[in-house]
């Protein structure tokens, strides 16, 4: 699959690495050059310096030909916005986004987005560990 990842923080970098190792063609987009340095050139992922909420930058990163779009930046609004843009403007078949706020995660899920809430998952893991 061709996959575009928006956000090259810790989470984005891990996702990119795993996807490449699974044999996918991955492009990762971030507004910070420093973040993009998390991807070693030897990995074979394409890195693009650009803003994932701008149509022109998304096009430059090749969104028009991808099978999946993943939005994993820190900001909920940016992730939700980019994900909806990918889905409605660029008709990307599969779109997944991180939404930290559990209320909004549920809301976007209800609106048909595949939204993952790290805060909900992590608190669940911590509580589970406490009980052990």
């Amino acid at each position: 699959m061709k996959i575009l990842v928006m956000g090259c923080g810790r989470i984005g970098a891990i996702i990119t690495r795993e996807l490449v190792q699974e044999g996918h063609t991955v492009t990762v987009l971030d507004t910070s050059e420093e973040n993009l340095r998390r991807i070693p050139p030897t990995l074979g992922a394409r890195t693009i310096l650009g803003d994932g909420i701008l149509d022109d930058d998304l096009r430059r990163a090749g969104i028009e030909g991808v099978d999946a779009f993943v939005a994993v930046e820190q900001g909920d609004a940016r992730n939700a916005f980019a994900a909806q843009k990918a889905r409605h403007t660029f008709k990307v078949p599969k779109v997944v986004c991180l939404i930290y706020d559990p209320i909004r995660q549920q809301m976007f899920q209800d609106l048909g987005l595949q939204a993952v809430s790290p805060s909900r998952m992590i608190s669940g893991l911590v509580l589970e560990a406490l009980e052990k």
Partner: protein
Amino acid sequence: MYIIIVGCGKVGYHLLKALIAAEHEVLAIEQNPQRHAAVVEELGSVALSGDGAEAAVLAEAGANRADVVIAVTGHDEDNLVACQVAKQRFNVKKTIALTNDPTNEKLFRTLGVDVVVSHTNIILAHVEGELTEQPLIHLMPVPRSNLRLVGIHIPPDAEVVGKPLHELLLPENTLISLVVNRRGQARLPVPGQLIEPNDEVIAATPPEADEELVEIFTRVGR
């Protein structure tokens, strides 16, 4: 009426003052603490500090009894999400959003924002009117639809000159609303009416049909 304004920058601040003057119940939500403090100092307790795109903050603002939410921050993603949360979580009837990036206008409408205002597009429409070589001018959005009114000037050598209106193959959802002839007389379009040189055709049309309309009405005849 209870109105919540998300973002109290330049646009939000003047909206807040105008709506208070019009005797509405208004509350502005501002993320920047200094900016929030300055507004409260000047206008009293009409502003809340926080991220207006967050459900918890909108709840604190009393969004469940708001009639209108207006999102006018400098960030389109916050404006969109604030309106979506207001609509989905708090059943706010009317949401109004500013798009700083004019290319986002259509997406906002698709995603259910009731009124989308793009200052760039508004200014562009005025400038287009001044440019004579511009064949199509955007006049105004048609409320409660994704259509807008456009004006098209018919060049004297256009292929459509002399053809009856009803024979034209128009783009989908496009409706000719008015024809103004070169003497400035406006007529409602009727079947069989012939297009004259230098007519000004006013049509309601979706944004994506602009290019096709220009092609139909201004293509030069052989």
